[in-house]
């Protein structure tokens, strides 16, 4: 994965929903740089999901039917637990 591709992925992590922006913030900063090429490819597929589906999966309201994506979505949810807000 070249640097340009990585930066493109970071930009595409900007979404139409605030909740997703917030959920992805810490994942993008902390986890994304550690992903290998295959994992990045999975994340890129996740970025193609409609925002509301993506949010429901991250919030555990429903499960992404693609198991490979589901595993990465679980990592996004885990990366974010308690990462925002004035209490921190």
């Amino acid at each position, binding site marked *: 994965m070249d640097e340009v591709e990585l*930066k493109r992925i970071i930009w595409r992590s900007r979404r*139409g929903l*605030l909740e997703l922006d917030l959920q992805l913030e810490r994942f993008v900063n902390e986890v994304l740089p550690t992903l290998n090429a295959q994992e990045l490819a999975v994340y890129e597929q996740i970025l193609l999901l409609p925002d509301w589906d993506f949010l429901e999966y991250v919030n555990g309201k429903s499960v992404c039917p693609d198991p490979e994506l589901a595993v990465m979505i679980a990592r996004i949810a885990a990366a974010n*637990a308690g990462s925002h*807000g004035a209490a*921190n």
Partner: protein
Amino acid sequence: MTKAIPVRKFDAIIVGAGGAGLRAALQLSEAGMKTAVLSKVFPTRSHTVAAQGGVSASLGNSEPDHWTWHMYDTVKGSDWLGDQDAIEFMCREAPNVVIELEHYGMPFDRNSDGTIYQRPFGGHMSNFGEKPVRRACAAADRTGHAMLHALYQRNVRANTQFFVEWMALDLIRDEKGNVQGVVAMEMETSEIVIFQAKATLFATGGAGRIYSSSTNAFINTGDGLGMAARAGVPLEDMEFWQFHPTGVAGAGVLITEGVRGEGGILRNSDGERFMERYAPNAKDLASRDVVSRAMVTEINEGRGCGPNKDHVLLDITHLDPEVIMSKLPGIREISIKFAGVDPIKAPIPVVPTCHYQMGGIPTNYKGEVVVGAEIVKGFYAAGECACASVHGANRLGTNSLLDLLVFGKSSGNSMIDFIKSAPKDLPEVAMADVERSVARVARLDNQTNGTNVNDARLAMQRTMQAHAGVFRFNDMLKEGVKKILEVEQMVKTTMIADKSKTFNTARLEALELENLIEVAKATMISAEARKESRGAHVRDDALDVPETPNGRDDANWLKHTLWHREDNRLEYKPVNLQPLTAPSVALKTRSY
């Protein structure tokens, strides 16, 4: 002189691919106009996606309804600051644009007879405020999402040309002030290109990110407003912003007001249940305005919580955990995720949170940008970035999606007429604005020390939140004007470490901040000057007395604000109380 900048030519350019931009593009492309749409993100990830409530239209599918009733509700909602010609236009057009959208494939919820299902919504009334009426049309709770998809698919079919991951930098005006297009940057390469057209529409959305607590997505940085202001176009009614009383402090995600309904209690830094002092009877169940006002007063008087004393606490720890789990599961999740707090064990930090911008680029109901008595030739605006003005001092629920459809379409039609009447060949591009734009980017690329972009943004957001939030104080506003002009100096000297050319998000964020600061200044200066309370602009010192009920002072302030960037000058223009055909909705005190 910079090296030659490539020029791409179109009939029409649209900046922004949310609901308004897509609706306008469709009108133009289907009329055979060569249309380019520039967007920072993929169209279906525009912030329109977040709209859940629905779109209003007096279809009367469930019970009698009429556009004049919708108009009455909108004028009243606007606290009489809305222009009644534009409001009539919007409410009359509503059924047409909704049915059109249905024909584009929008999956509206339906009645058993196949007609569009309509649900009740706050402020929607029949017979001029008599009783609630079902007027909101929705596609489950994904109305905005469904709208974007239907419009995007239709645009693809109509051969609209999309330039995705492009950021418009500046408006181009010739020596007469006519608009020739925009300067834009391709994110992937940082290449700067001139997009020239006969007609240019801004549909760039709102700028809620000027506040530290906002429900707006990160992309909502008021790019069109910044570009318009730098090009000498004033911004209208920027003191009016819709707030929600309880968002998670520091994040902006909303906590439903149902939490207080279930027994949630607001507390200050002393742990005091402060609503008892402000509303001895209703306490925490007082109306939105009263609760917001009390929260801000507590923070302002030094009883806020946290290291910056900038929020209060919403306490549900006294509730049975079973009740929290069964009745408020989403709230527990939001609190754990975005506040790092389990509300079963500790209170949730909350603060009034910015949601929607009523003001914007001044237009008429045809989407034409109007300055003084003059139309700015070739320039149009629609949606949240525009001020037609249909929302006036406060927006009626579900009128935001309607605004996108009606004024997206009417702008498109105005642009088609203008393009057809314009000379066939495009003139030479006036280079003055282009050079200023290139210099702005070069300044960032060459600046080797200065202010950190994040620091400047935080300073702006904290200043706006503290000094021009949901409830306003004269001395705080005066101090706020001074402070925001200091922040402006920080923004002028921002420095980015990353000077690379490919997807340089640091540079993009610095450029976005240059747009946000224009909106922040416009808001603070306009709010300081308006010495009354009206709609969403509520001041501590505007007295609720018979001459000025609810603090609204029609004798002096029934007028639109126009802020000019050049010298931070304000001027005012009258509200249009004369509809196109209907009788005027006469002034009266707003109460629900």
